[in-house]
C-alpha cells in the first residue's frame, strides 16, 4: 500500500491535470496570476516534501532491510552525535527560509486589494449568496438550482450537479474586481478555486478579497465554512464576460430589476398567484419547510396545518417579510420581490390542504417593504 501511495504521489506530481477530470489528483492551476502563483508555491513545497521523504524514508527502509536481526545484524552502541544533530536542525531551518520568501511575496500581493475597478459586496445567507454591485444599483440573490429529484436520486444527475445557481455573479474580464465579503447570519466562506480566492464571510465584519480574471468563462466554487444544514448546497458560480457584454448585462439587469419593482402594482388572480407561489416556495422555502410543507423537526416547523399559515394573514405576512429573530427564519423582504412574496404567502395558505382561501396582493407587500426601508 505504501508503494501504491508513493506511486499515486508521483502521479500527482506529474503536473496539472485538466480541470475537473475524474480521478483528479492535483489542485487545478486556476486562471489568474495569483492562482498560478499559489499553484507554484503548492508544487514547490510539495516537491520539497517529496525530496525529504525520499531521504528519510530511504534511510529508514534501508535500515529496516539491512539492519535486521534475521540477517545477522548486530546493534551498534552510538546514541548521540552533536555535529549530526546540529546539521539536521539547521538544514531544515534554511530550507524553510527559502520557502518563506516566495510565500511572503505572494501573500503581500493577495492582500493588496487597492485600485479595484469594480466593487461587489458578497453576503452569505443560510444557504445562498447575495451580490450587491456598489454604485451600480444592482442587487440579487444566487441560490442552488439543482432539482431535489437529482439530490434524492430520483433523476439522473447533470454535469454541474450541486454547482449550478439561478443568478450567477457576473464580472468583467481583465478588470480588478474587489469583493467585500460579509454574512447576514452565521459564518460562511466564499471560495472560487480557479481564482485562488477564499475569504470567510463573517457577520459584523467586512473582509476584502480581489481577483483579475483575464479570460471570459464560467467558474464554479462552494461555501467552505460549515454554516448549518444546507452548507453543502450553496454553490458559487461566476460568469466572466468581456467588457462590452458585461456593460450590456449591467443595463439589462437594471431594466429587469426595475420591471420587477414595477410589477408590484399589478393585481394577480388566485390561479396566477398559486402557480407562481409554488415555484417560489420550491426555491426559497422548501429546503427547510420541505416540499410537502411538513417541515423538519422543531427547528424548521411544518406549515401544513400550522397556526401561522391558517391564522391571521397580517401575522403570516410579517413573519415571511421580516423573519423571526433568534430562529432560523430569515427576513425575506430583500430576497424576494413583492410579487414573489405575495405569491408564496398565498401558496402557503392554500396548499397541502391548507384551505384559508384568501390571497395576498403584491401592492400590500410593496407598501410594507417601503415602510420598513
Amino acid at each position, binding site marked *: *500500500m*505504501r508503494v501504491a*501511495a508513493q506511486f*499515486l504521489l508521483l502521479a500527482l506530481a506529474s503536473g496539472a491535470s485538466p480541470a475537473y477530470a475524474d480521478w*483528479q*489528483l*492535483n*489542485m487545478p492551476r486556476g486562471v489568474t496570476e495569483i492562482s498560478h502563483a*499559489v499553484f507554484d*508555491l*503548492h508544487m514547490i513545497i510539495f516537491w520539497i*516534501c517529496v525530496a525529504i521523504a525520499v531521504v528519510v524514508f530511504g534511510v*529508514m527502509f534501508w*535500515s*529496516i532491510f539491512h*539492519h*535486521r536481526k534475521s540477517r545477522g*545484524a*548486530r546493534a*551498534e*552502541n*552510538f*546514541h*548521540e552525535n552533536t555535529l549530526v*544533530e546540529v546539521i539536521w*536542525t539547521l538544514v*531544515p531551518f534554511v530550507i*524553510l527560509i527559502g*520557502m*518563506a520568501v516566495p*510565500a*511572503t511575496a505572494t*501573500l503581500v500581493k*493577495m492582500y493588496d486589494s487597492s485600485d479595484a475597478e469594480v466593487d461587489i459586496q458578497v453576503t452569505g445567507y443560510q444557504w445562498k449568496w447575495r451580490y450587491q454591485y456598489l454604485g451600480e444599483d444592482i442587487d440579487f440573490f444566487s441560490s442552488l438550482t439543482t432539482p431535489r429529484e*437529482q*439530490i*434524492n436520486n430520483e433523476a439522473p*444527475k447533470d454535469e454541474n450537479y*450541486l454547482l449550478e445557481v439561478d443568478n450567477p455573479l457576473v464580472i468583467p474580464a481583465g478588470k480588478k474586481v474587489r469583493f467585500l465579503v460579509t454574512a447576514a447570519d*452565521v*459564518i460562511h*466562506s466564499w*471560495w472560487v478555486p480557479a481564482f485562488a*480566492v*477564499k475569504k*470567510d464571510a*463573517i457577520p*459584523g*465584519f467586512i473582509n476584502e478579497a480581489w481577483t483579475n480574471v483575464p479570460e471570459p468563462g464560467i467558474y464554479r*466554487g*462552494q461555501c*467552505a465554512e*460549515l*454554516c448549518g*444544514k*444546507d*452548507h*453543502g448546497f450553496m454553490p458559487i458560480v461566476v460568469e466572466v464576460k468581456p467588457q462590452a457584454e458585461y456593460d450590456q448585462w449591467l443595463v439589462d439587469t437594471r431594466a429587469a430589476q426595475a420591471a420587477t419593482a414595477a410589477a408590484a402594482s399589478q393585481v394577480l388572480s388566485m390561479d396566477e398567484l398559486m402557480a407562481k407561489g409554488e415555484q417560489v416556495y420550491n426555491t426559497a422555502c422548501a429546503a427547510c419547510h420541505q416540499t410537502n410543507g411538513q417541515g423538519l*423537526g422543531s*427547528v424548521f416547523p411544518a406549515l401544513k396545518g400550522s397556526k401561522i399559515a391558517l391564522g391571521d394573514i397580517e401575522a403570516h405576512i410579517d413573519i415571511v417579510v421580516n423573519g423571526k429573530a433568534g430562529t432560523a427564519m430569515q427576513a425575506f423582504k430583500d430576497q424576494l420581490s413583492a410579487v414573489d412574496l405575495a405569491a408564496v404567502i398565498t401558496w402557503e395558505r392554500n396548499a397541502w390542504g391548507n384551505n384559508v382561501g384568501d390571497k395576498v396582493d403584491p401592492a400590500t407587500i410593496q407598501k410594507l417593504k417601503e415602510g420598513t426601508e
Partner: protein
Amino acid sequence: MNTLTRTIEHTEQHGPAEGLSRWFFTTNHKDIGTLYLWFSFAMFLTGGCMALMIRAELFQPGLQLIEPGFFNQMTTMHGLIMVFGAVMPAFVGLANWMLPLMVGAPDMALPRMNNWSFWILPFAFAMMLSTLFMEGGGPNFGWTFYAPLSTTYAPPSVTFFIFAVHMMGISSIMGAINVVVTILNMRAPGMTMMKLPLFVWTWLITAFLLIAVMPVLAGVVTMMLMDIHFGTSFFNAAGGGDPVLFQHVFWFFGHPEVYIMILPAFGIVSEIIPTFARKRLFGYASMVYATASIAFLSFIVWAHHMFTVGIPLMGELFFMFATMLIAVPTGVKVFNWVATMFRGSMTFETPMLFALAFVVLFTIGGFSGLMLAIAPADFQYHDTYFVVAHFHYVLVPGAVFAIMAGVYYWLPKWTGHYYNETLGKVHFWISFIGVNLTFFPMHFIGLAGMPRRIPDYALQFADFNMVASVGAFIFGFSQLIFLVLVIKTIRGGDRAPAQVWEHPQGLEWTLPSPAPYHSFVEPPEVK
C-alpha cells in the same frame, strides 16, 4: 522499622476488592488505567460507527441514508468523541498504568482524585450522547463549534454539550495535575529528570499543556453559555460582539490540544523503537528539548487555523513563520527515530510494526501540515478534504497507531500473557491498508476542491470518495480483531517473564508479569 515492615507486608497482601465495587471505588492506578483504556476503546468504537455512517452517506453522490442535519450531528459527535473520548482518555489510561511503574512509584500521587477524574467521564459522555435524542437533535456545528452557528443558531441541546465539555475539562485538569505531581515528587532515588523514560517526559510536558489550555476551553464554552442564556454578546455581532474572538479563544486551546494528542505518542514510539532495534534511543536529550520546543511553539501558532478569516497581513505572516518553525523540532524527532534504527538489530513484532507505521504515516501528516502552513496555499487547502486527510494522518496512523503500539508493547506486562503474534500482525496489516485507503485519497479530493463537512458532493469527486468509504469500512471492522485479541490475551496465552522483550530498558520490566496489584512499595534504586 518493625512496624514499617509489617505495614509493607500488609499492603502487599491487600488485593483488589471483590465485584463491581472494585471498579467504582478503586484508587489503584492499574485499575484506573484499565478503566480509562476500556472506556476509550468503547468511545473509539462509538465514534467509529459515526464515521462509518458519514462514509456510507459519502459512498456515492446524492442523499441516500441520512439527512443533511443528521449528517452534521454525526461529523460533530464523531470529532468530539474521538478527541475527548477516545484519544485523550487512552493516553491518560496508559499514563496511569505506566507512569508509576516507570518512575518507580507505588501509585499515582493523588489516588482518590484519580478515581474521580475517571468517573466523571462516563457521565459527561452519557450526557453528550443523550443530546442526539433531544428535541432539535444534538450538536450540529462541527467539533470546532464556531459561533454564532453554535450560539444563536444552535439547537437547544447545546447547553448539555457545554456542560459535558466542562465535565471533560475538569476530568482532564485533575488527571494532568496528578501526572505532574507524580512525576515531580515520586521518582525513585537516583531517577533524575534526564534519566526519565521519554514516555514520562512527553507526558509531563503534555500535562502542563493540559493545565494551561483546558481552562481556556472552559472559558470559551462559558462565554457561549452566557450568550445563549444570559443576554451577553461576546460572539454576537448584532450586540457589538465579535464572532472571530470565538475562533481566537478556541484555537488558543485547540492548537496545544492537538499536541496533547501527539506528544505522548512520541513518547510511546520512543520507548518501542529502541527495544526492537536493540539499540539505545538516539539523541535522548535532543528528544526532550524538541518536545519542549514543540510545546512552546504550540502556543504561538493558533491563528494558522484562521488564515481565511481576514487577519491583518503582519499577523498572517507571523503565524505562517511560527508554524513553519514547528517542522524543525518535529524533524529532529523523526531523524532521531531513524538514527535509532540505523545500525540496530531489528525485529518486527506487532508493537514495532505499529511504531514504524507511525513514523512513516505521521511524517506524511507532517508534510501536509507543512504545506498547510504556507498561508497563500492554505487559501486553497483550507476547509477542504486536504485538511481532513492531514489531521487524520496525524491522529489515526499517528496517535491511534501509537496507542495500539503501546497496548501491544505493555499488554504482556499487564496481563502476564503474550498476545497472539499472528493475530496481532493480521490486525496491523489490515489496519494499515484500511487507514491508507481511507485517508490517502482524501488528499486528492481536497486538492480537487471538495469542501469538508458536506453530505453530498459534485460528480467529479465521486471516484475517490468511493475508495475512501471502502477503506473506512475495512479499517473500522479490523478493530474488532484487536478487541478479540485483547480479550484472548487477558484470558490466557503464553506466560510472559518479567522482561517480556529482549533487553527492554526501564523499571517496568524489573517487575514480574503481570505487574503485582501494588508495586514498588519499597522504592527501587536507579543507578
